[in-house]
């Protein structure tokens, strides 16, 4: 697909960037102290902080990644919504008030509050940096995906643009400007996502969706042909290659790849090889995604569509066992010359299969079950351990405000995640999935309602990235300047120097984020964030929980827990099947083990390390005091 930016989308985008930069400039004059820079002075109203939480948390992974995953995988994408929201329960019931009581600027402050241990400062700061970087990659990647259609610029330009703006936001006013950017973004995201879902309900469902149109008003939706090998041969084509279920035929009009289904029918695919799309140099992939039958309706009725429906009817109609949905998947095969070909192909699935887990997260084998439980565990326990979320507890005046702002966050985030199911399914049924990059499903769904909504949604999605990246960079710069330089390095920085160090650190982290965002292009952003949650849940949560609820916890125990958590989680990820099948360019079978999601091993290991080391290093009744030497 190649959607060029329109003057409208560019204008909305520019307006938003100007507003954000003005906010930063405005607050820069008011945030001169370290408390002002790292924690917005602890004076943010709890309601504002709650929406800012939503703005911080509803990242590119939530908006772009989850909607894209639901659009291509159905209900499996919604599992992320459920897990991400459930994590806030842990934050509210276990973490919120104690974090506010114990901490000052960073996650490290809280875990080190009882100990004053250099070991904890170092381990917690490294953990903050690792988790923030893991989380930054998908956000920057999402930014690049957005800027391509919004401004008609290449992916890497988008990443650099976001990086530059965020560095400007954070380096001018730190947490103060970040808070209001997140508040603005959180509010706008909720309002316009609601508007889009309301429009979707008015449109209803049908087998001939409105879809996207080109400038001449022609429908862009790719409708795959269904045929048989005999028909192709009779039409003068001959099979030149086969790769599993994929067959390549050549004829008078060139070559094409087809997928053979279980019934022996051939389905037309879209394919990319060596700069050619569907055999055409410089060609374009066309958008996909439609229902081919609606349960309880004749083909003629389904073609006319349901008209306006309620949200429950919308979901019920899609869940109907006679409903048929075209699910789009991608794979890579070698052609007859050994060249790598990426094939985007349809699968006809029933409504029953679309609306239940099992496309991506299969629970048929032992390892698949383990991976599923592991992912859900990491999502549940990861939220309350994310450094950029935890530092937002320091921006409110009291623990009670921390609690109330978490409840506002649960309401806002929960409502948004309900909307993701509709937006994702809307993209799947309205021909608005870019087969090469499902991250754009929600903005393209907006485009099916007109260019104004597309411009607004894209600008908000862009703001989504800005808000989250800003929060991550504040957390990371705090880890470098406050935890490592000032407290671990005992540099005893003045207020002014501490703020300056934070700004320099923000610049450095921003540059790293830009480089990684370019390198990880095209990977589903929600999937990467799942790993960030696993690392956070493994490295940070055991330390927080045990610090609060187990009196014999020692500093050495906390250091061991964080270290074991990071190493085991990252180790399992880096040697696992997802990395081999993805970034390493090998096959999943070559991986060292079959565990794609580390949480189920790394979280218990981290708890175990804390308990064993605390028992070994602690003295009876004096956990905190005993281990101060750590």
């Amino acid at each position, binding site marked *: 697909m190649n959607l060029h930016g329109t003057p409208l989308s560019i204008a909305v985008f520019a307006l938003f960037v100007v507003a954000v930069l003005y906010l930063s400039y405005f607050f820069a004059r008011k945030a001169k102290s370290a408390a002002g820079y790292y924690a917005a002075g*602890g004076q943010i109203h709890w309601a504002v902080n709650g929406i800012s939480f939503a703005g911080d948390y509803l990242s590119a992974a939530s908006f772009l990644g989850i909607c894209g995953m639901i659009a291509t995988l159905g209900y499996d994408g919604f599992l992320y919504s459920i897990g991400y929201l*459930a994590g806030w329960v842990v934050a*509210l019931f276990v973490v919120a008030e104690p974090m506010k009581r114990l901490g000052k600027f960073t996650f490290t402050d809280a875990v080190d509050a009882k100990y004053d241990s250099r070991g904890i400062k170092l381990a917690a700061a490294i953990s903050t940096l690792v988790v923030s970087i893991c989380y930054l990659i998908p956000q920057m990647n999402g930014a690049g995906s957005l800027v391509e259609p919004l401004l008609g610029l290449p992916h890497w330009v988008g990443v650099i643009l976001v990086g530059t703006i965020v560095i400007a936001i954070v380096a001018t006013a730190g947490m103060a400007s970040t808070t209001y950017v997140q508040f603005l973004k959180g509010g706008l995201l909720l309002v316009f996502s609601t508007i889009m879902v309301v429009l979707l309900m008015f449109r209803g469902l049908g087998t001939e969706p409105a879809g996207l149109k080109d400038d001449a008003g022609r429908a862009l939706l790719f409708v795959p042909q269904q045929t048989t090998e005999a028909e192709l041969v009779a039409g003068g084509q001959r099979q030149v290659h086969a790769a599993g279920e994929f067959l390549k035929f050549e004829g008078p009009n060139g070559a094409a790849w087809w997928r053979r289904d279980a019934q022996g029918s051939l389905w037309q695919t879209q394919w990319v090889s060596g700069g050619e799309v569907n055999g055409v140099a410089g060609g374009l992939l066309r958008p996909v995604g439609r229902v081919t039958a609606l349960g309880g309706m004749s083909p003629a009725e389904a073609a006319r569509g349901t008209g306006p429906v309620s949200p429950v009817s919308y979901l019920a109609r899609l869940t109907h066992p006679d409903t048929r949905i075209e699910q789009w998947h991608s794979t890579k095969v070698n052609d007859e010359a050994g060249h790598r070909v990426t094939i985007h192909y349809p699968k006809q699935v029933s409504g029953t299969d679309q609306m*239940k887990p099992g496309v991506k997260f299969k629970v048929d084998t032992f390892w698949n079950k383990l991976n599923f439980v592991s992912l859900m565990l990491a999502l549940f326990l990861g939220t309350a351990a994310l450094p950029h979320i935890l530092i937002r507890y320091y921006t409110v005046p009291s623990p009670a405000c921390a609690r109330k702002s978490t409840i506002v966050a649960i309401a806002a985030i929960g409502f948004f995640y309900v909307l993701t199911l509709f937006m994702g399914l809307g993209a799947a049924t309205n021909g608005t999935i870019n087969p090469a990059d499902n991250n754009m499903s929600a903005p393209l769904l907006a485009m099916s309602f007109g260019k104004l909504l597309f411009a607004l949604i894209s600008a908000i999605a862009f703001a989504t990235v800005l808000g989250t990246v800003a929060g991550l960079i504040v957390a990371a710069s705090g880890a470098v300047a406050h935890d490592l330089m000032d407290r671990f390095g005992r540099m005893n920085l003045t207020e002014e120097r501490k703020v300056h160090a934070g700004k320099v650190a923000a610049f450095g982290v921003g540059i790293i984020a830009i480089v990684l965002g370019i390198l990880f292009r095209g990977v589903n952003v929600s999937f990467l964030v799942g790993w960030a949650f696993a690392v956070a849940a493994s490295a940070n949560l055991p330390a927080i929980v045990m610090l609060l609820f187990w009196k014999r916890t020692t500093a050495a125990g906390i250091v061991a827990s964080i270290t074991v958590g990071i190493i085991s989680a990252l180790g399992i990820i880096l040697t696992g099947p997802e990395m081999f099948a993805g970034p390493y360019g090998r096959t999943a079978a070559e991986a060292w083990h079959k565990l794609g999601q580390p949480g189920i091993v790394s979280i218990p290991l981290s708890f175990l390390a804390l308990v064993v080391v605390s028992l070994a290093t602690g003295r009876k009744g004096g956990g905190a005091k005993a281990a101060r030497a750590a």
Partner: protein
Amino acid sequence: MLHEPARDSGPDPASPYKTRLGLWMFLVYCLLYAGFVLLNVATGGKAMQAIVLAGLNLAVVYGMGLIVVALIMALIYNHLCTKRERELKDPRWEVRS
């Protein structure tokens, strides 16, 4: 808004009650969440496709339910915590409005 350092919160007499309550509510939600995960694993996903309410399957109803229940429990938790804080009448724990 000055963005200067927040005042020290000081001791919270309601803290033990809130911690205990939070832990219990966390355990209740844990059970609900674990039920969702384990039901899916134990039945190989088959239980999730059963239509249970208004044409919706268990996967959708249970998933949406977990989101809604989280909010309801959060509101109950806040109500009980705020009530206890008021009972203890410590002005330092009044929430700024």
